[in-house]
């Protein structure tokens, strides 16, 4: 989802760069004030951790594999301001060393992946934490946060590409959101699984470790942000025309992208639910169903992982 150079025009690149610079500056200042000196190395190591964690492959059916993006996990484990700093560092290294994501598009990539995603996801996470108490609630909230963060990033990305005139909004948003419904699902599940491992082995490390305000003080804004993000993910994301015919045929004919395969394999491919006449209503309904499905998956996983102690031993015996 890293935007390469050449996809954004100058006005979009400059605007997004300015927005990111301000947001990164604010979060670095927040971090500088709240971060104890002995935690500074932790932020650097956390950036290296996110980078290494992105290289761990999670097998998906059909020989493909997904990986963690880590934004939501960083926000849950370190707090939102630290997550922004960590992801900015990761994106800078990816840009300068891997040429992954363009130099002029760096501002846009930081805005999508490093700022909008983690902040929106974190707001959803806090909101759901309040609604669902307990450890299980926290796991479900983290999964939903990871899912929202991914889709929010995709929405931002589609918006920037449309603003640049490179890819029309309806095509971009449909394609991006379709692909990222799956990627976001994986992100949510992996975030939940990793968080549950950390909560089991070192519960003391599973909270914001930076001494950063976790949003208790500004409860209202965080909760409002959560509601806004959820509304965006639920209603704006699917509020796009169904895949235009021309594009669909282009993708199907060329068939060289595994993204296209993903798309074909999507359970709700094309976002159409039979029985609903208006395509817009159908896509919105599909978005709601997708979100509900993610919630159920998160809840079931959190339940089974909650009863880990007895289950783990039995499983080990089976494996032997």
């Amino acid at each position: 989802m890293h935007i390469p150079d050449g996809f954004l025009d100058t006005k979009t690149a400059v605007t997004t760069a300015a927005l990111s610079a301000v947001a990164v500056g604010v979060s670095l200042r927040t971090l500088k004030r709240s971060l104890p000196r002995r935690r500074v190395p932790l932020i650097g190591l956390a950036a290296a951790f996110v980078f290494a964690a992105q290289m761990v492959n999670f097998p998906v059916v059909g020989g493909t594999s997904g990986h963690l993006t880590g934004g939501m996990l960083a926000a849950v484990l370190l707090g939102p301001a630290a997550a922004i700093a960590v992801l900015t560092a990761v994106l800078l290294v990816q840009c300068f060393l891997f040429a992954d994501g363009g130099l002029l598009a760096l501002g846009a990539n930081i805005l999508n992946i490093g700022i909008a995603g983690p902040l929106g996801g974190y707001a959803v996470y806090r909101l759901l934490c309040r609604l669902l108490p307990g450890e299980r609630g926290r796991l479900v909230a983290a999964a939903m946060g990871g899912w929202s963060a991914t889709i929010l990033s995709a929405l931002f990305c589609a918006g920037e590409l449309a603003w640049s005139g490179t890819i029309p909004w309806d095509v971009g948003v449909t394609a991006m959101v379709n692909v990222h419904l799956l990627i976001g699902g994986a992100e949510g599940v992996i975030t939940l699984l990793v968080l549950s491992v950390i909560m089991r082995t070192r519960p003391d490390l599973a909270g914001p470790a930076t001494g950063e305000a976790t949003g208790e003080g500004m409860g209202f804004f965080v909760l409002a942000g959560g509601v806004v993000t959820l509304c965006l993910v639920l209603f704006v994301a699917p509020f796009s025309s169904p895949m235009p015919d021309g594009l669909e045929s282009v993708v199907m004919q060329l068939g060289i992208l595994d993204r296209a395969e993903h798309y074909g394999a999507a359970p709700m491919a094309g976002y159409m639910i039979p029985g609903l006449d208006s395509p817009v209503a159908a896509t919105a309904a599909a978005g709601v169903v997708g979100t509900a499905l993610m919630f159920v998956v998160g809840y079931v996983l959190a339940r089974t992982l909650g009863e880990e102690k007895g289950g783990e031993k039995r499983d080990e015996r089976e494996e032997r």
Partner: protein
Amino acid sequence: MKHNFIDRYARGDSAIHRIAPGVKMGSALAVVVITVAVPEWPMVFYGGLVAAMCVVAAMARIPAGFMLRRLLTLQPFIVGGALFALAQPEGWSMAARVLVKSNICLATMILLANTTRFSSMLDVLSRLHAPSLLITILSLMYRYVFLLIDQTERMARARRSRMFIRGRRSWRHTAGIVGHLFVRSVERAERVYAAMTARGWR
């Protein structure tokens, strides 16, 4: 450690490597800005840029195969994006423009990464008054990312050699690797802090 593939040729020694890092970063930025900002250049211009980059790569003794491999690795994103640009009037010219521009910028960044050490790029950034906390984070990250990748590979190998199952449950075990990697990173951060303090970091 067998994976310093990221910027394999950055430590080379050639006329290009010896140019001041600030100059190289500035010219890379200039090439990217000009390529992106100007809507349409005559093909001759792009041809000239490509030729110039070939000369730089040859002078820096970066093998052509390496450059092409790096370019190919990143093609899926560019080609995928360009495909979606087809879905509008005059889509073909937009797609072609995007393809050419992206690849030129990509090659520029690959050249920069492989002729300039990351630490000297950070020096330039800090001389430009980039926030000191960000520079600290970036240097620590670059210092430890190789170690953590190594550690991840060791953990994955240990897991593979001890278990024989595949499929549904493997996600949980893979998540176990990531979770423990985080715990170990936090513990390593504590040792790093102790070491830094012992050496007079303030």
